[in-house]
């Protein structure tokens, strides 16, 4: 399914990451998944939170640059090859994955995987047809 992801600009300064996660915590939001991409100059923190609107407002109020993106979330069997299988399905169908990260959900035997793709709806139909749960 399509879920909301918060992308946050992280200035390359010590303590910035701690500061950002503290702002979200103080807003009473809970982190469900996260991933960070780092470069020489800056980082981009990607978060799945329980209340993205609350988190986004808190960040903005604290002078943090953030944006909300629609990303695809798919359940993948929590066994060796589970992730690779899903990615193969996507590449066989010409879907490019910009980035991805996974988290273990509290229920069931599946891992939850977040993927960023160009066409969310097309990706969802490809995965559904291949039998994946979203």
């Amino acid at each position, binding site marked *: 399914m399509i879920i909301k992801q918060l992308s946050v*600009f992280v200035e390359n300064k010590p303590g910035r990451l701690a500061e950002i996660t503290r702002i979200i915590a103080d807003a009473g939001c809970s982190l469900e998944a996260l991933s960070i991409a780092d470069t020489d100059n800056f980082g981009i923190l990607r978060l799945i939170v329980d209340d993205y609107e609350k988190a986004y407002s808190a960040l903005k109020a604290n002078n943090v640059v953030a944006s909300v993106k629609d990303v695809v979330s798919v359940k993948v069997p929590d066994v060796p090859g589970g992730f690779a299988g899903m990615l193969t399905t996507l590449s066989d169908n010409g879907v490019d994955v910009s980035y991805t990260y996974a988290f273990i959900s509290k229920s069931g035997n599946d891992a939850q995987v977040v993927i*960023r793709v160009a066409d969310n709806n097309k990706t969802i139909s490809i995965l559904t047809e291949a039998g994946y749960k979203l």
Partner: protein
Amino acid sequence: MAIYNKEIETAERHELEAIQSLALVRMVRKVYENVPLYKKKFDEVGVKPSDIKSVKDLHKLPFTYKSDFQENYPYGLFAEPLSNVVRIHATSGTTGRQTVVGYTKDDMEIWSECVARALTAAGGTKEDVIHISYGYGLFTGGLGAHAGAEKIGATVVPVSTGNTDRQIRLFQDFGSTILCCTPSYALYLGDAVQSKGIKKEDLKLKAGIFGAEPWTEKMRAEIEKRLGLKAYDIYGLSEIMGPGVSFDCECRCGLHVNEDHFIPEIIDPDTGEVLPYGEYGELVFTCISKQALPLVRYRTKDIACLNIEKCECGRTLVRMSKPKGRVDDMMIIRGVNVFPSQIEAVLLTFEDLAPHYLILLDRVNNLDTIEIQVEMSENLFHDEVRQLEALVKEIKRRIESAVGISAKITLVNPNTIPRSEGKAKRVIDNRKFD
């Protein structure tokens, strides 16, 4: 397009130099005998008026600085008794005392003629309705433009500054054809015209003469677009005379200096050495014809270069480039002269970049380093590293292309670069020069 004073404005170089030499010799003797400061300066460098025989000897003379005005406030630099001074003007004086300047009746004539040349070059004639929105008062802008407009016999409307609604109403009611004001105000008027739903085609404005502050070609294009007129530059400073020291012709490829009155030089701001045509350096003027306040080699602190080639318009008066910046602004990074304004111009080409930036200079391993901090904003933010990296790379590339040096670009959080009411401090130079 017409030329106000064909004889002078299209004179052969050797004729101009002859006029200059004659006037210079006379002026040097006058200041030595009448202005104590100049007697002191000349004696200090061991120069006597009789040592100056022509313009070729100009370089032997000492410089005059803004501080000379401050130290001789208010009338200490006048070469005429106050009873012969018919007009006083002064600059706003943001730091300390105002700079006071004076004019005799003949000086006022010179001023009128210089501005008349500028107005004529912009197509102005007695048929024009000249709308003057420069401030009238101690500031030289309003009354200077006024004198020139009257000289060409135009219909002068001395509106002065402020009351934008009225300015626009007068454009329509009085049929103003030429506008004189600062370029920022012109932009502002253009905006106001647009927001009132007035079509620029319904206004009779055909030309505008803008000066008193630096402005870019981009601003020129904006002003022309909004007001539907042709925009001309005019340059001057109160110490030298006021507006009219130099002016744009229809080619708008450099401002013609009224060098029968003001001899321009370009010098190296550190050594004082006179630089050849085409090289950038500090603009210096010598007032050879004014009576009340003739200045010897006044250092303007403006950076420009001179072009001696005859212009397409037919004028032989030397052209100066638009001032590129101020001496105090200029940074030298790895031997390259860089102005914050150049960096700003590049950053402005990125639509979503806020106009707040900070330039940090340092020295690492004996090599100058430059870091430009730029604020991140939601409009600029891309979710993917690749896109943000591409932005950083593009900023770096455009800067390198514009100023010739490679800078580190750092994206910082919004609202972290200090703002200021006045001129923002854009450069932090941590280099220690031993």
